[in-house]
């Protein structure tokens, strides 16, 4: 019974996601005239397949296996389902009928419809097969994957982003170091801070201190102050420096305390 519910829900989810992924991918070929939804790597990879249905299909298939392994193991589809499997398979199906990419892969309407159909099939397949796997098998996966994932998120990803920021120039390295360190303390992970640092550093490199970059910096600082406040970082910091927490800060926290 549960499996039937999962199947029905998957069909709806797959249709929604597939429709938007197909349409968004086709619109990428018309960006920036048209605002698109996708990823640069998807655009590059789809261009690399050069409108050959077999290349699009096998490219998607490789990532499909990976997504399937990950879904069976940990219940996570990987981002490749929306980034690679759906757009490339939708493109491959359309190209079978018409070889001209302008009429097929670059057409949001056709890609949306093909994407919706592919999405339904892929999501339904992944969810039903993975939920049919016995629980005891998932124990291994959890035992192996969770520690690996923790290392990846907390140590490896911050370092890779951080070094990329440093290599990208003095400004992005500087801002990434400041915000990365702060976000490791305030948010518990350095990646968001490093990403925001790159955004500001490269933005200033390319535009200078214009209104856009100043507004961005202001927004980032506001984000840090707000998340610091709501996670109680201000109190921890004052206590860390062995100082008395002023009453007005305690009062402000008690207003927002939801617990």
């Amino acid at each position, binding site marked *: 019974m549960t499996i039937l519910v999962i199947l029905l829900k998957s069909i709806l989810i797959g249709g929604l996601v597939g429709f938007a992924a197909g349409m968004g991918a086709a619109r990428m070929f018309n960006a920036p005239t048209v605002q698109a939804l996708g990823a640069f790597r998807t655009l590059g990879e789809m261009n690399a397949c050069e409108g050959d249905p077999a290349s699009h299909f096998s490219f998607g298939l490789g990532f499909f296996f990976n997504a399937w392994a990950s879904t069976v*193991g940990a219940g996570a589809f990987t981002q490749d389902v929306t980034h690679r499997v759906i757009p490339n398979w939708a493109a491959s199906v359309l190209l079978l009928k018409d070889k001209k990419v302008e009429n097929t892969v670059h057409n949001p309407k056709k890609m949306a419809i093909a994407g919706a159909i592919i999405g339904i099939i892929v999501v339904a397949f992944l969810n039903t097969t993975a939920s049919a796997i016995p629980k005891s098998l998932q124990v291994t996966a959890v035992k192996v994957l969770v520690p690996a994932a923790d290392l990846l*998120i907390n140590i490896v990803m911050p370092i890779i982003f951080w070094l990329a920021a440093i290599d990208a120039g003095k400004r992005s390295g500087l801002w990434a170091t400041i915000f990365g360190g702060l976000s490791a303390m305030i948010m518990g992970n350095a990646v968001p801070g490093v990403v925001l640092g790159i955004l500001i550093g490269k933005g200033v490199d390319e535009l200078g201190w214009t209104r856009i970059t100043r507004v961005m910096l202001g927004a980032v600082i506001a984000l840090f102050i707000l998340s610091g406040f709501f996670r109680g970082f201000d109190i921890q910091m004052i206590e860390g420096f062995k100082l008395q927490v002023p009453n007005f800060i305690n009062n402000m926290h008690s207003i927002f305390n939801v617990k």
Partner: protein
Amino acid sequence: MDEEKTMEIDKKSFWYSEWSFPIMVGLMAAGVFAGTHMYFVYNVGAFNEVAIVAMLKAGMDGGSYGAAAAFGASFLFARILEGSLVGILDLGGSILTGVGIGIPTILLSIGWKAPISNFWLSIVTGLVLGLIIGGIITLVRKYTINQSSATFGADVMMGAGNSSGRFLGPLIILSATSASIPIGIGSIIGAVIFYLWKKPIAGGAILGAMIFGAFFPVSLK
């Protein structure tokens, strides 16, 4: 990308217009948010990388949702800024991570379970969130479009994002080898097969570890 410029783009039609962008984002966000509902209820179906879903899992198992919430929300914020400036909203950071992980964990951390545990509510919540995000981007574009051709380091982030994915394979094998010797051997064999087959080795390492783990089980502490 230049040759398509000759193609007729009817910016008034639904498929190419600015106003359809929020609808498209809304549909995507609805599906992804419902995917998180699936994971929350059935432990399967989250639209994200294992590493990021693991943060949600940590919260569901009684830990803190803080890491996932901050991670997802900051990604969403950065991607909205970037997306409106470069013309492509990054699906992974904004919707999959921001809407799929960040916002649900914020809701869960304040004890608001209903939007995630109820299927229809999750679809509606996702749809509304997507419409808001798409709307913000359309608005920002109105005021900033053609003002700059800056990429805001999107290439840097993209490169870093891609290379961090590569680390997962070796990390999984390392973690499998410390789980138990049979599981370690299984993950090595799986990774080797996938490597020779020219596939990302992470998938093979997971499958190999699972197959050997099925015959030589370990208990979850």
